[in-house]
């Protein structure tokens, strides 16, 4: 009895010794292979260290690490240290506190919807002079992806890992039933309903599904001719013109017949993906980021298509941009990293080819490798072609705060079947209150 107790104590004491030795030690040496660099700009052999924070985990994180290694291998005087900082939201929280305490990185990935908020606090570097210095024009980038890049005439971010919602279709299933891929809301309603299989009170198969996100309702608001904010950003742009009511009424109508499966909020992306792979749903609104994973998993004829139109074709964009922080002490080196990543073939292009995110420069689009990939995987080209209709109308400093309220409205309608006009009216008032601040 007793001896065991003491052995536990001694093990714990051993821990503490270890802690005492390495607690401070790991800070000084930082030899971890994943990239524990020191912040001192004058590292070994006069190398400049550039800290880069990103939010890419899993496979995409590996592709990003590979990109950083390629950069470091080709630059003798600069060393980029990339660090994963959690999800997009977590990265934002960490950036805020790090900027406040002066421990921020030089370059950071930033989810596009937060760019305005950071720019408003004047912590992002205006990239215009750097672009001019390197002889790059804003027109070199894919226009549909530049929606969140400028703030008050400053160029504060450039596109990096960008995606867009797209329609994923189980073509085998549609062919069996002699159905065509829908291109309008009306056709979508017919096709989705035709796909439904109901046994008793239980749905064995649904028509279409989408993850729980603001993305898809926003896409559909634009398709119905509305905008998220009105022109002078004092209120919403889908209330009085009826676009919001129309969109939600349409979704509720589909949901009532099993034509639409609306998943639980948490982990919804995985749930809809699984259902699509299993053939439990015939079509799915989902990010382009899923194309790679889906094509390697499904055992049916899988194609992608434009999101169906109502009045017009329209789709928002998503993913993250890259920004340089004003507090950086190594701006030249930081810019070299951004420039290389954006423009060089072995930089961003390679990453885009591997990950399946959208090509963000015209040069990338025209490159042989990209064209070859598209010839092989037309599903990916559809995503790019759809950018012609990309429109982001939810751009505002206060968007992150308003997003919370919009989620509440979506939940009230989609889960609790609350009255649509009343819910949207409440949402409109909240939005106006926040925008007025």
């Amino acid at each position, binding site marked *: 009895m007793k001896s065991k107790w003491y052995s536990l104590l001694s093990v714990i004491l051993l821990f503490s010794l270890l802690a005492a030795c390495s607690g401070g030690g790991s800070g000084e040496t*930082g030899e971890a292979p*994943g990239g524990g660099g020191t912040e001192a700009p004058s590292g070994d052999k006069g190398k400049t260290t550039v800290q880069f924070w990103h939010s890419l985990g899993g496979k995409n994180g590996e592709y990003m690490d590979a990109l950083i290694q390629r950069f470091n291998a080709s630059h003798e005087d600069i060393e980029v*240290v990339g660090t994963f900082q*959690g999800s997009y939201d977590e990265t934002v929280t960490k950036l805020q506190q790090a900027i406040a305490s002066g421990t921020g990185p030089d370059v950071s990935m930033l989810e596009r919807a937060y760019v305005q908020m950071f720019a408003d606090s004047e912590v992002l570097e205006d990239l215009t002079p750097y672009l001019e210095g390197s002889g790059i024009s804003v027109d070199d980038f894919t226009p549909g992806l530049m929606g969140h890049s400028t703030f008050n005439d400053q160029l504060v971010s450039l596109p990096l890992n960008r995606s867009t919602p797209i329609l994923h279709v189980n073509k085998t299933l549609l062919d069996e039933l002699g159905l065509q891929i829908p291109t309008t809301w009306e056709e979508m309603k017919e096709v989705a309903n035709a796909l439904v299989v109901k046994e008793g009170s239980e749905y064995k198969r649904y028509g279409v599904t989408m993850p729980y996100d603001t993305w898809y309702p926003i896409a559909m608001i634009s398709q119905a001719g509305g905008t998220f904010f009105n022109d002078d950003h004092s209120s919403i742009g889908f209330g009085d013109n009826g676009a919001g009511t129309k969109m939600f009424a349409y979704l509720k109508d589909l949901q009532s017949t099993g034509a639409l499966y609306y998943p639980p909020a948490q982990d919804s992306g995985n749930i809809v993906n699984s259902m699509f792979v*299993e053939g439990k749903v015939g079509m799915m609104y989902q990010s382009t*980021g899923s194309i790679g994973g889906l094509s390697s998993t499904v055992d049916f004829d899988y194609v992608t298509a434009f999101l169906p139109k109502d009045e017009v074709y329209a789709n928002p964009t998503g993913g993250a941009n890259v920004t340089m922080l004003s507090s950086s002490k190594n701006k030249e080196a930081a810019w070299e990293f951004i420039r290389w990543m954006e423009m060089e073939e072995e930089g961003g292009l390679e990453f885009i080819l591997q990950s399946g995110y959208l090509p963000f420069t015209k040069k990338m689009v025209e490159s042989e490798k990209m064209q070859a990939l598209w010839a092989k995987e037309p599903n990916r080209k559809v995503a790019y072609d759809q950018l012609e209709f990309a429109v982001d109308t939810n751009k505002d400093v206060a968007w992150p705060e308003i997003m919370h309220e919009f989620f509440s409205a979506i939940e009230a309608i989609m889960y609790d079947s609350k009255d649509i006009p009343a819910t949207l009216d409440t949402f409109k008032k909240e939005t106006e209150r926040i925008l007025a601040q």
Partner: protein
Amino acid sequence: MKTFELKTVWILLGYVLKAAVLMIFIFPFLWMISTSLQTFRETMTFPPTWIPASPQWGNFMEAMNAGPFLTYFKNSVVVTGSIIVLQFLIMIPAAYAFAKYKFPGKTLLFGMILLAFMIPGQVTFIPVYLMMADWGLVKTLLPQIIPFISNAFGIFLLRQYFMQIPEEIIEAARLDNANEFKIMRKIMIPMSKPALATIALFSFVSHWNDYFWPLVMTDSAAVRPLTLGIAMLRETEGISNWHIIMAGNVILVVPILLVYLFCSKHIVKAFVYSGIK
């Protein structure tokens, strides 16, 4: 004869019921192990697969190769170990004083301990991070350790136990010229083993599994614990490899099970042998 049969039926029924309860509780645990041995395709089925067609042991290697796994592991061990040791060193004298002394301001000071126990990290993390950055500690393991050295929960629990130790034993020791540290070491600690084991277990589990605090306190891979390494396996967009993530989680849980096996025995047994009667 009849009563005997009835008794057997009751006993059997008890076993069945206990087994059922057991299943309800270890369900996710089994599922986690099962997923960690599945192929990607199997994890995609809905409803989930229960028994993998052929166990994929390679998933564990893949999880471990995804990052500087050894560094993560070492950090987890050092952080959790140091927290527990420091907590004990600080907690025992404090709990002793709060349990056995009367002194001006005691109620107020103990009230502060309780307040500390009530305030969650999600509310205080920003000021604490700013302070750590000010002190230049962000690149070390200390921001994950020192905020927890005063374990308010532990002081509270231990004080409850110390209060139950009869005054006479302490007085007798004092008459024998024992000083305060000797009293703590020879009387208070041995008599409150179950409480200490409970605290150690609770502390270990919560800090070993902690995701939030290390995430907001660390900026580089060199000082990160295992939980963050596993979170990194998740896909930001697209389809996550749940079989790999769960393999990581299984590795994460093994040390806790070992500590549990050790502590639970003490928590239960120590009572029976200890002086509290």
